[in-house]
């Protein structure tokens, strides 16, 4: 044990490498959306720009997203307190809220289409579909990770008290939440 410990401690780690990797990955996702929203700003000042009326349902999906951020934070807390029962319940709720969010985004898209704002063209609606759609894909990725953790939490064979995967999922989930708020406010402000 002594030998192993000394070998391991030769690698200085202030932050878990996987967490650090996630943070850099988040930086790179931010750059992608920064590229898209700056394209929006450039495009907005050009000819043939058309505006779009943002459906009410996107306000409700924002609330759902915020609540899910709260539940995953509570899930992380429960996990750290080894309250696995509570953890399983909260992680399930978070995953369901995530899927609910995506369902609401799709409903929002359908309402937009019905209102005549189609993807074709060059106005705000085209950007809205692409940017919100790309964000929804990122939420879907997060939900997939949550479902995998759900499977692990209910599996009888796996007994893991390593908090790193839960912390990674929580960080990512908060990120897609904040990203959504940025995008939503951006559209409300710039539309």
């Amino acid at each position, binding site marked *: 044990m002594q030998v*192993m*410990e*000394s*070998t*391991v*401690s*030769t*690698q*200085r*780690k*202030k*932050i*878990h*490498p*996987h967490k*650090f*990797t996630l943070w*850099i*990955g988040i*930086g*790179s*996702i931010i*750059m*992608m*959306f*920064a*590229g*898209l929203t700056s*394209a929006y700003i*450039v*495009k907005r000042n*050009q*000819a*043939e*720009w058309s505006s779009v009326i943002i459906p009410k349902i996107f306000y409700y999906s924002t609330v759902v997203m915020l609540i899910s951020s709260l539940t995953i934070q509570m899930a992380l807390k429960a996990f750290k307190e080894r309250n696995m029962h509570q953890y399983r319940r909260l992680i399930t709720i978070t995953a369901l809220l995530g899927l609910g969010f995506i369902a609401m985004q799709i409903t929002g898209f359908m309402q937009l289409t019905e209102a005549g704002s189609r*993807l*074709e*063209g*060059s*106005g705000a609606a*085209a950007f809205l579909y*692409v940017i919100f759609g*790309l964000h929804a894909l990122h939420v879907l990725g997060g939900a997939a990770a949550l479902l995998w953790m759900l499977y692990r939490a209910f599996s009888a064979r796996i007994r893991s008290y390593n908090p*790193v995967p839960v912390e990674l999922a929580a960080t990512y989930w908060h990120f897609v939440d904040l990203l959504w708020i940025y995008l939503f406010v951006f559209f409300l402000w710039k539309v």
Partner: protein
Amino acid sequence: MANDSFHGHPEVVTTHEVHHDEHHVHHHKETFITKYVFSQDHKMIAKQFLITGMIWAIMGGLMSVLFRLQLGYPDQTFPWLEDILGRWARGGKISVENYYALVTMHGTVLVFFVLTGGLSGTFANLLIPLQIGARDMASPFLNMLSYWFFFGGSIVMLASLFIQTGPFSGGWTFYPPLSALGDASPGSKAGADYWIIGMALFIISSLLGGLNYIATILNMRTKGMSMSRLPLTCWALLFTAILGVLSFPVLLSGVLLVVFDRHAGTSFYLADIFVGGKALPNEGGSAILFQHLFWFLGHPEVYIIILPAMGLVSEIMAINCRKPIFGYMAMVGSLFAIAILAFLVWAHHMFVTGLNPFLGSVFVLLTLLIAVPSAIKVFNWLTTMWRGNIRFTPAMLFAVGFVSLFISGGLTGIWLGNSTLDIHLHDTYFVIAHFHIVMGVSAFFGMFAGIYHWFPKMYGRYMNNSLAYIHFWVTLVGAYLIFWPMHYQGLAGMPRRYFDYSQWLSFSQFSDLNKFISTVAMIVFAVQLLFVFNFFYSIFKGRRVTSTNPWHATTLEWTTPVRPGHGNWPGEIPEVHRWAYDYGKDGRDFIPQTEPVGPNESKHH
């Protein structure tokens, strides 16, 4: 710090480290698949990147030979061309469409698949864990995925060469409308979709790799390896990875909008276009918008290509001059300055697109500022060589060649960075000459230097020196003979991307020069095949490496066994006590980083 090994309780223990620490004597059994194919060992992944990159380099180089054939001998036919290219060269003459496809794919392949994937992928994977003292990357699994996304992207891009309508042919910059309209040219049909898919996979690969390189350098350094003791290779690879992680996603968003323009009827980039006399319905799009998004990646991309070469050259220079690198902190600082400026100069590719002249002058200033860190680096390489005890190994020759090319190509960058001169010089052979010398050939020289130098670490054998010297001299002389005359052609106004200049009175005077350039290009290409032969021959038959530290270098990769297993060090990871450049100190030839500082040792810096 010395007490760490007794009291330090690390917060986290990643599983693979413990795994290897437990098994370092009787190494766990590996099958052919886990060792050579789906390997998670960074050294094997480096070799996979290198060999895939070399295959791409041969293909990309061959493409240039084929289109140089057309440019040098526009009035002749080569029946054997029809044998290899079929209907793309009917009657032994390359068709116009195929000429543009070759030019486009030559750019795409060499910029992305060779000099980004092949160069960073090889040396970041090989050197980062070995030089910082880590058993592997932060996430060996993501690292493996990084290669396999690269492989997937390569296969898709390769497949596009064989489809009926041919690969994308609208230039490596993928500008709309040629990229966004299937009707624009044959290559804009399926070829453009293949290009998009191939590049998307490539971008994912480069992001996964970059995340790993950054996390590994910042988090996995061995005890005593502070950032200021890091070899310059690792610094360069760190900045390269940061540039990639921040700029490639922007290209992805730019290309994503092209996908919607192609297939979903949007008009992000399309407006007022007539095809076959009929007006398209697209209104309000802006092709210039794509150029902004593209060059926001595209400019950092050239530094993604050149920074690793700079890092490799700095390291090889110090080792083979038996002197500390001159101005270590200035080297790091100039890398940092280049990385920052890389994001602030993209519009110098767009001076003649109707850019606001005031904005243009801001970009001129920022562009010319890059001359400062570049000049610092050149100065430091020259002063490292100054009065050094130089060993002219093949690696060192290529490093010196790199500096020569970087100076020659960098000077013309100062011309091109001026928006007024650019009115005359844009889209001419002057630009071709500039960027081929400063980031094409010189990055290749950095890569060759790295391959010759670290080949003993990769395969436990040396490459053949005689072949290497032939390779070096022919390539260096050839590179200048190819690209130097192009400056004159460009100054005379000869535009790039034309199929046949012989019918054009202003430029038909260059027909002999074009013939000369094409002939040299063929010779240089043949010599690259000699290098490839040397590489593969030496893997199996090269002279064996007998000592663990054949170059008498200070860095940690030479403290591993000649053929290190997965985990790199059989015992404990060595501890670092000094910077990487203690050469010729206190009467000693070199002092390894692992040696503690002696009581009477002179202070260095």
